[in-house]
Every structure is written in C-alpha cells, then in structure tokens.
C-alpha cells in the first residue's frame, strides 16, 4: 500500500517555485547581489585580429585612468581550462586566435572606470593567416589554429588529431557499408549547412570571485548551470583541493547550455587571484556584444549524407560526414560532435553505417553546449535528406519514415537495442494533426502554403559516470529542505523536485523548498545539462525521500507501538488509522521522540540518495559500438503548416503540431513550458538566426539588432502539443528528459514544408527572407530545385560543394 497521500505530487498541474519573486522582481540574480565598497570591476580588452602574435601590450594609458587598479595580461594567469579538452586559456598568451579573444583585463573601482581603462590599453599584433571555413580547416592544414594540440590534456573518449584542426573525430563503423551501396537500387547524396547560432538568454554572463589572501580559499558567485563542474575544472587547473573552492549559483536568467561547464569564471579569477587584488571581490559582467563574441555558440555545421536505398524504400546503408565548426575551442564542443555521431541514424533502423563526425577548429568564437547538443544540427540535415529521398523515390515522406523507423528492439547505429517508445503513434498523430496530405489554400493573398514533418531524437549526451546526489531534511514543523544541486534556470526543475518530494513524503508542496546550488552546502551533482535532471537527480532525490520517509515511519512505529506498514503520511499529517492516531509533523522530527521507555530516540531526519547510470559503456573509439552507449532516447515528431510570400520570401508559421514520448510528465505545467518555448526557439533558429562574419573574421551580428531572435510577433498562430508516456525502465517514475527535444526539429519541418509550398529545396539554414527569395528566383530563372549557400564560399553550388570534399 502506498503510505503517502498528497495533492501536489508527481503528474499534478501545480504552479512553479520562485515565480512570485520573479514576478515582483525581487529575486536576486548575480548582478543584483550587493558586495559593498570593496567590490572591484573587471573589463576585458579584446583582440581585434582573428589570428596573430601579440607583439606588445601597452597598459600605461589605462593605468592613468582614475579608479583603475590593475591591468592583467595572459602571462599573469597562465593556466589552461577545459571540461573534455584543455585547449582554452582565459586570456590569450603570446597569440590570439579570434576577434574578441580577451588579451587583457582592466580592474577598477567602478564599472565605468574599467570600461574607460579597457579602451586605453593598446595592443600590437603581427597578423597570421586565419581560417574561417570549417571544411577548409578540416581538409587543409596550411593554417593550424592549435599547433600545440598534441600537448593538450583530454579525456579518453575525445580523439584530437595533432597536426590538424580536428579537435575530435567520432566514428561509427557498423555492418558492411560498401556492400550496402553495391546492393542499393538508389543512391542519394545530400548536403546541408547551418551557421553558428547564439543562445540569446536574456541575462548576460556575470560572476564575482574572491580569494582569501590567507587561506587561499576561492569563492565564486556565478550565473552558471554547473557549480560542481566549474569547481572541479578550476581546482584541476589551479591545483587546489576541491574543499578550497566554493561555487555559488544564484538564480540564472536562462541557460540553454550557454552557461554550462565553465564560461567566464576563469577570466574573473585571473583578477581575483592577482597578488595586488587578492581579498577584494571582483565582478565581471560581460556586455551583450561580449556574450555574442566570447561565450559558447552553437557550432556551425556542414553535413554530407549518402544513403543507399532499395526499391522497397528500405534504407540499407548511410555514410555520414559531419564538420562541426567549433571555433577556437572544443573543450566542450567536442561532445556534441559525439552526440550527433552516436545518434547518426536518427530515428531510423539502418543496418550499415559509416559516420565520421569531426570537431573542427577555426578562428572564430567557440562552440559548446546548446539546447539539443548536436542533434538540431544533425536532424536538420537527416530529416531534410529523408524528405528529399522520399520525394525522389515517389514515396510518401511519412510512409518512408515509418517504413524505416527504429522500432523497439532494433539496434541503433552503436548496436544498442532501442527501448520501448511510441514514436509510430506520435508520427501518425502529428501527420494527422497537421493534415500533411491535405492541400489547403493559403490564407494570405498570393502566398503559398506548405506542410512538412520532421522527427526528433536525443539521448542525454554525457560521460558514462555523470552522477547525482541529494539530501532531504524534514524540519521541525514538517517543512522540507531539499538540497539537489540541479540549477533551475527557468525550466522549473525545483517545481519537479518539490513534486517528487511531495509524492514521496506525503507533504504538501507549499512546505517544500529547493535551494539554489552552493558547493558548500549541496551534495554533488555533475551538471544541469543533457535534459538529465528530472531523471538522474530525480533518481537520487527519490531515494533520499524514501530514506527520510523510512526513518520517519520507523520512529513513529516505535513511538506509537504499531507496525511500520500501518503508518501513513497524508498531506503532512502522520496517521495510524488502526490506532486512531493522527498528528502533524512537529519538533519531534528534529529533536527526537520520547519513546515508551522514556528515552529519546531519533534526531534530525536527513534522507540521502545518490545515482550513477549503472550500465552505460563508452562506445569503442574505432567503431562507435557499445552494448549501451547512452542511458535512453527521447523521441518525437514535429509537423509544420506554413505559408510563404514568394515576392518577399517571408515565412509565417500557421500551426505547429508536436509530440514527444517523455515516459512520464512529472510537472505538466513545466513540460508544456519546455515544449512551447523550445518550439519557438527552434522556429527562430530555422527562420532567422545565424552568426555571420566578414572575410576578416569580424562578427557582423553582435547585438539583438543584427542577431534577430523571435519576438512575440514571430510565433506561430497555433502550437498543438501532446506527449506519450511509455515508461523508461531505469528511471524514478518512468520519465525521460524533454527540455531540449522540442528545439530539435521545428527547423527541418519548416524546410520540408517550404519544399512542399515552393518545390524548392533550400539546403542552407536558416530560411531567412533573403535566402528564400533568392531560392525562388534561382528556380524561376534557372530551374534549379536545390539552393545552396555556404557563407565561406559564396560562389559554390550545391553539387560542387559535395564533390570538393572528396
């Protein structure tokens, strides 16, 4: 019998934690914290050349600015940092590698003085040839972004190729690819490209660091998704014990992966650890332009996909080449490259697979984690390729997908058997919801209407040993203190955790509080990434709650002299119906119970739980094969009904229908929020977003004026969403992540709908007005169906692009 009763448990539509403070504006983000008059401000001086040797840095004029305390350069803080590959120093040392790279840090008594000082540092460079095109960088070693690559430390599952610009090379070798292509009735070859894009969270990065001059202990307040990973990366680089670094993450204003791992903290530490500044807190708030230039971006992407298909429409083999443009650092970006690699047959069963997925260094801002983690890039290519193949074979695109679906039990491209899912049901529902085969007239005069579909899949992409732990303390009035160091960056994970605690403890959600992470108080969690928190931390938290509940029940059974199974906790009241006893949780829970023998027993009840995925084995380096390469996949599908104005190239999305199999919705209000938000972010990426550079590597889109993200005027008229709940075996409630998935496939669904509307296939994302217009014009003038624009080689056409890579 279930021993707890609550109205605010798992699966209930409850409102979110911390929303009242957010609505009032009283919740304090890092930039809102007060540090008193000892606070100093730091401002970076940034490289103005894309690749060059630093000849000199003249600080003298900056030091004359009133309020400037110090100007720090790379040699003052010569440490390398990195999550998977230590290829990044917080400031350039001897050499700059992109426009925007920090070359000096001005520290001053006020933000204004720091800004003024930064303008007065003068740096001389000897320019070197730079490389911006990831395809060129991957295939031509005349410019090396990191000639020292061979000396960088890295984790075992990353395979940098010294002497080249390849920071990671992930391979899948499965079956007999040559035989598949020999036996094929049809061979298709497609190319797709996607530029770098920006996260566009509204809160710029901000952190405050201080080092105690005596104990050398470091405290960091940061807008970060990853307190423990930040702590561990810094400790590793500086050679300090973990216990001497405290990382505190107040609420953050959006993450989307952009605040994962370590971002600007090391740059701020260069000041906080400086002998002349030690003991004073240093604040580093970076401007919007600096966010665009010098924090993670989603990596640019170029894909070539070759497919071998038989007459019946079965895919026999796939040969993939992916170039991820990781900019000057792959310390984090090496991993989305793996993610796309080990998922490189998407939602399909393909028996013969050959995949080369490369992280390629270029002289541009660097790639890292971004909602979807390699999958929006890859699925934008694969789902478009699937559509092309279906059309070229004269098959229905939905039927073609269903025919090749990765059904439960079939092996993925790494050889892992696919678990149970409801993808077939989802695809059918989406196709029907969008009326995929129903031709409908455009609502707008002179416009063309089209419909398209794309499937979505993603596993949490993380090391095999990504662990979580949690503690749950029941306080003396029946309140509950949950310490689970996931970051609630808006996705609502604390609401989900409170619902889990409510479910397991029988205590109403109003009495439960989850605290923002602090490495000093919270037990360890790897990072808040990979849509893993409700699953991984959920496992730890559920165990912690069970532990606390068992302690409570054990004490009450002795106190009341009844069997533990006769005790229930109902809405915060402990009951034994058999004995007619009922009392709200009170101070006994922390001070101890006076037992029938007159002696006290108990003391504060603290439950603890921990979790590490029990059965994941890293894919083999040579073949990518593993009996269980990832913990699980969340699958789904997106259908888009849009119309496009052929005279301007403008796209309006009428309707989106999407569904995901998330196992179990712990907090439905937040699931809805993730689906709606991710869908619009995906549409935004598909229609308007891209980071563009001039031929010298200068970012042309460093602000929200030039880098457009969706405003309220850019959303679809209607978003219809649903979810299926096929339970996951190893999971607290059968749940799988869904935070990232909604962003994966709106863009390819738009691309496929555009083809349906215009009969023109645009291989280059995003589908901006200009590009759509040009594609229509090219079709009208030359009859070319395929439109290809690659920002680094404007004259190249689509077929030549493919050939030139051989």
């Amino acid at each position, binding site marked *: 019998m279930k021993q707890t009763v609550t109205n605010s448990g798992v699966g209930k539509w409850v*409102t*979110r934690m*911390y*929303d*009242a*403070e*957010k*609505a*009032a*504006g*009283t*919740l*304090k*983000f890092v*930039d*809102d914290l*007060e540090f008193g008059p000892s606070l100093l401000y730091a401002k970076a001086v940034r490289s103005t050349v894309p690749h060059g040797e630093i000849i000199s840095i003249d600080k003298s004029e900056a030091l004359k600015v009133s309020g400037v305390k110090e100007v720090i350069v790379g040699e003052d803080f010569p440490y390398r940092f990195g999550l998977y590959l230590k290829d990044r120093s917080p400031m350039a040392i001897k050499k700059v590698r992109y426009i925007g790279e920090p070359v000096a840090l001005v520290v001053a008594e006020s*933000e204004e003085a720091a800004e003024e000082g930064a303008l007065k540092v003068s740096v001389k460079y000897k320019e070197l040839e730079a490389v911006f095109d990831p395809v060129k960088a991957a295939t031509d070693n005349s410019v090396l972004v990191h000639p020292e690559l061979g000396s960088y430390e890295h984790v075992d599952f990353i395979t940098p190729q010294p002497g080249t610009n390849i920071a990671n090379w992930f391979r899948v070798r499965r079956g007999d690819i040559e035989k598949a292509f020999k036996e094929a009735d049809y061979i298709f070859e497609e190319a797709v490209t996607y530029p770098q894009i920006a*996260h*566009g*969270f*509204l*809160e*710029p990065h901000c952190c405050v660091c201080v080092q105690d001059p005596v104990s050398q202990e470091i405290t960091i307040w940061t807008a970060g998704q990853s307190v423990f990973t930040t702590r561990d990366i810094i400790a590793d680089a500086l050679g300090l014990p973990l216990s001497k670094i405290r990382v505190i993450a107040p*609420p*953050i*204003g*959006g*993450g*989307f992966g952009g605040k994962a791992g370590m971002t600007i903290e090391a740059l701020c530490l260069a000041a906080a650890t400086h002998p002349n500044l030690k003991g004073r807190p240093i604040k580093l*708030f970076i*401007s*919007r332009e600096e966010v665009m230039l010098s924090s993670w971006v989603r990596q640019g992407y170029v894909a070539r996909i070759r497919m071998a298909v038989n007459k019946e429409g079965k895919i026999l083999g796939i040969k993939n080449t992916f170039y991820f443009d990781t900019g000057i650092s792959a310390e984090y970006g090496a991993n989305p490259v793996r993610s796309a690699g080990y998922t490189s047959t998407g939602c399909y069963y393909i028996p013969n697979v050959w995949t080369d997925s490369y992280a390629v260094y270029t002289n541009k801002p660097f790639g890292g984690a971004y909602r979807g983690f390699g999958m929006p890039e890859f699925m934008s290519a694969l789902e478009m390729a699937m559509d092309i193949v279906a059309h070229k074979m004269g098959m229905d695109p939905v039927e073609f997908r269903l025919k090749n679906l990765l059904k439960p039990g079939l092996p993925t491209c790494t050889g892992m058997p696919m678990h149970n899912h409801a993808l077939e049901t989802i695809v059918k529902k989406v196709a029907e919801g969008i009326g995929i085969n129903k031709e409908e007239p455009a609502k707008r005069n002179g416009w063309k209407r089209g419909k398209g579909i794309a499937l979505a899949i993603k596993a949490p992409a993380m090391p095999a040993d990504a662990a979580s732990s949690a503690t749950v303390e029941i306080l003396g009035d029946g309140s509950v203190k949950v310490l689970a160091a996931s970051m609630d*960056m*808006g*996705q*609502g994970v604390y609401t989900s955790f409170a619902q889990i605690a409510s479910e397991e403890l029988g205590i109403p959600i109003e009495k439960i509080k989850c605290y923002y992470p602090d490495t000093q108080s919270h037990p360890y969690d790897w990072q808040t990434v990979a849509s893993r928190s409700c699953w991984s931390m959920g496992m730890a938290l559920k165990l912690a709650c069970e532990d606390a509940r068992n302690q409570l029940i054990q004490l009450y059974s002795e106190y009341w002299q009844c069997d533990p199974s006769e005790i229930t906790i109902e809405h915060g009241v402990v009951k034994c119906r058999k004995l007619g006893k009922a009392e709200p949780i009170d101070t006994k829970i922390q001070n101890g119970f006076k037992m029938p023998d007159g002696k006290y027993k108990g003391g504060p009840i603290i439950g603890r739980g921990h979790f590490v995925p029990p059965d994941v084995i890293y894919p083999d380096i040579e073949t990518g094969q593993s009996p269980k390469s990832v913990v699980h996949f969340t699958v789904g599908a997106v259908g888009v009904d849009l119309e496009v104005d052929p005279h301007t190239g403008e796209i309006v999305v009428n309707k989106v229908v999407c569904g995901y199999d998330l196992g179990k919705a712990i907090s439905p*209000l*937040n699931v*809805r*929020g993730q689906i*709606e*938000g*991710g*869908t*619009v*972010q995906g549409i935004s990426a598909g229609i308007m977003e891209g980071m563009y550079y001039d031929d010298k590597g200068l970012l042309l889109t460093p*602000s*929200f*004026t030039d880098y457009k*993200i*969706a*405003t*309220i*005027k850019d*959303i679809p008229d209607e*978003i219809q969403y649903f979810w299926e709940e096929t339970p996951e075996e190893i999971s607290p409630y059968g749940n799988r992540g869904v935070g990232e998935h909604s962003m994966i496939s709106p863009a390819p669904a738009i691309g496929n709908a555009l083809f349906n509307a215009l009969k023109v296939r645009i291989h280059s994302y995003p589908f901006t007005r200009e590009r759509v217009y040009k594609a229509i014009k090219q079709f009208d003038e030359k009859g070319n169906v395929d439109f290809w624009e690659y920002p680094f080689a404007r004259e190249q056409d689509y077929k030549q692009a493919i050939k030139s890579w051989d």
Partner: protein
Amino acid sequence: MSEIKVNFILNGRATTYVGEPRTTLLRAFRAHGVTSVKRGCEEGECGTCTVLVDGVPMKSCMMLLPEVEGKSVITSEGLVGPNGELHPIQKAFIEEGAIQCGFCTPGMIMSVYALLNENPDPSDEDIKEALSGNLCRCTGYVSIIRAVKKAAAMMRE
C-alpha cells in the same frame, strides 16, 4: 564628473538620486538597489529594463538619470501591495506558466501594465504590438499571451 541631484517619484514615493549626468536610468536604479530593472543588453534591444515613466513604458537603459526629473516612475516592485500581495498581472503570469527564468518578467510585466491601462480588453494583435519590444527566450511567448488575457479579465472584474 560632477554629480547632480535628480528628484522624481519612484513607485509613489518622493525620491532623490545623486549621480553623474551621464548615468543611465538603468544603472542609477541598480546602484540604488532597484534590481527588478534588469540589464540584458544596455542597447535598448531586449526590454528587460522596461519601466513606466509617467505611464509610458520606457527602456531605462536608453534614458539618462536627469531625464526623470519631476516625473513619476513605476517598476515591477511598485506593483506589489504593502503586505506583499501581487498585482493581478503578476498573479496571471504565475498561473499561466508565463514565467520561466524570470529575467525578462519584470520588464515584460511593466509593458503589460501599460497596455492594460490603455486597453482593458486587448486582442492577440494588440498584445503582440505592445510586447514586441520585450524579448523572452524561454517561454516562446505563448503562455505570456494567455497570461495577459487572464490578467485583463481579472482586472475588468
């Protein structure tokens, strides 16, 4: 730079700030602990610093402190009652899941407040027009539109 005194009404109270004339209204507020006014870009693009100046929603990063001399300014904190009661707009945002990270929320709510003062029963198009200067990256705006309609209904009652 020499400092000047600026007198204005902040959330119904007479207030005097002392600051350099070049100080933006955004930075002045934040220096005085009014941190509901967020800095998301300081370039007038994102709307997270939106406040009402004499009833008109303004991006406070685009105003200098002296410009509010003698004017009345309302921020998100100013909508909260003396005992912490939330304004119907704030309540509707919570009930409809229109808040995620919360960074755009105070500015967004000020734009909604200005809209509903002028137009107690806005259409979808009216809402989109009024909020087009406030970016939100988390919600996809769908829940925000729901919240504005709910708030409008609550306020009409």
